[in-house]
């Protein structure tokens, strides 16, 4: 028989436990991702977890390592017991979590703090029936549209300067969408795990950690992150960056 007092305290600290578990899972997955290396089908793994080792600097290049004076990472690398896989580097995994993971969380929370009403509109529409499916579909189409239009603009001189603007809008849309998806995941965890009510930014923090954990799954992480980013772009486009009114061409038809 379960003790109701201990159940209550587990419930009370549910969010803290969940965030801790997600952080540890992220670091462990990052360790595995670093070991897997960037062999196919694990492309661009280094972009997320960084290189496993750095070359020792020559005395005249010491400035390269001015941000890593302790050089602890060099001593905390272990050989993988099974052949064919790279070294185990927990320090580098922690570094990836505290740089890329923290960056993702901070950007997501910043987007939610700056645009709370828009985020709510977007999350409501993402949580509606077929919302996620439509966001992902729109994201795939948006990526195709962006690639085609950027390639087309490359063959012009007059509109070439628009390309950075297009890429900037796509980047902002992706960040806004990932922030909304993080909040939606946090709300889903709240409902499914029957966690106590908490500040929405804490739920969004848990959701952003889930996104980071998905991104560092060995081999599948890059594809998962791409899917989340595309769904984010699609969500931002479909909801017009979470505006209350949706796309309508009625005003053009008078």
């Amino acid at each position: 028989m379960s003790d109701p007092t201990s159940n209550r305290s587990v419930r009370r600290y549910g969010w803290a436990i969940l965030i801790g578990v997600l952080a540890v899972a992220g670091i462990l997955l990052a360790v595995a991702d670093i070991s897997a290396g960037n062999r196919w089908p694990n492309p661009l793994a280094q972009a997320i977890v960084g290189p496993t080792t750095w070359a020792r600097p020559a005395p005249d290049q010491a400035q390269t390592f001015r941000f890593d004076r302790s050089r602890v990472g060099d001593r905390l690398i272990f050989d993988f017991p099974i052949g064919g896989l790279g070294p185990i580097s927990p320090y580098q995994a922690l570094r990836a979590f505290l740089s890329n993971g923290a960056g993702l969380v901070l950007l997501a929370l910043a987007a939610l703090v700056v645009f709370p009403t828009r985020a709510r509109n977007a999350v409501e529409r993402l949580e509606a029936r077929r919302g996620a499916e439509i966001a992902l579909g729109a994201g795939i189409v948006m990526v195709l549209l962006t690639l085609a239009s950027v390639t087309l603009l490359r063959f012009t001189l007059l509109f070439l300067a628009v390309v950075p603007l297009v890429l900037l809008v796509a980047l902002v849309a992706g960040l806004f969408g990932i922030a909304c998806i993080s909040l939606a995941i946090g709300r889903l965890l709240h409902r499914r795990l029957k966690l106590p009510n908490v500040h929405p930014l804490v739920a969004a923090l848990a959701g952003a950690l889930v996104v980071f954990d998905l991104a560092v799954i060995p081999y599948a992480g890059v594809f998962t992150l791409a899917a989340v980013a595309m769904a984010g772009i699609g969500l931002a486009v479909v909801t017009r960056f979470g505006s209350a009114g949706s796309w309508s061409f009625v005003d053009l038809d008078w």
Partner: protein
Amino acid sequence: MSEPNALACARVRVLLESYVDGDLARDDAMRADQVRNHLAGCADCRRQHHQAASVPFRLKALTSPPPSESLTADVMQAIAPSRASDRRAWTLLAPEAILASFILWYLSGLDGLGSIADGIFGDLQGLAGWGSGAGPMPSVPPVDVLLLLALIALTAIAAYHLSILVQMAPGAMPTRRRV
């Protein structure tokens, strides 16, 4: 006592609703005058008239017909995206995939896309240099018309596809149908 004649009051209260609606003045002008005169002298009936003429009371007096059995199903069917647009939303992925594959093949795969990205940033730097007078104006690279057509077709289909997906999205405003 403010009630001059109990029978007259009862009669007036029966007629009050048609009096307020204006039906009584239209159908029987003399009776409407009698009611008006009665209201001028009877405070209780005047209060009843006041209440009967107020909007909340009149709204409360309205009865709504019972909804039909199929109301929920009908509404859900009316607001659900049509099967045709639903099908079109996913079948359009096929021509897009074909065009994207053709463009990738034409550009020699991901290497070609990489060279396009390099070219964009190189030309942007060249434009900035030309703007500041530090260098010549960059030249536009020659391109095959077939590639341009494929790019325009992909852009147009993707934009059309996006407009369908946007209409299918929950909370989307319906477009006005032409009559």
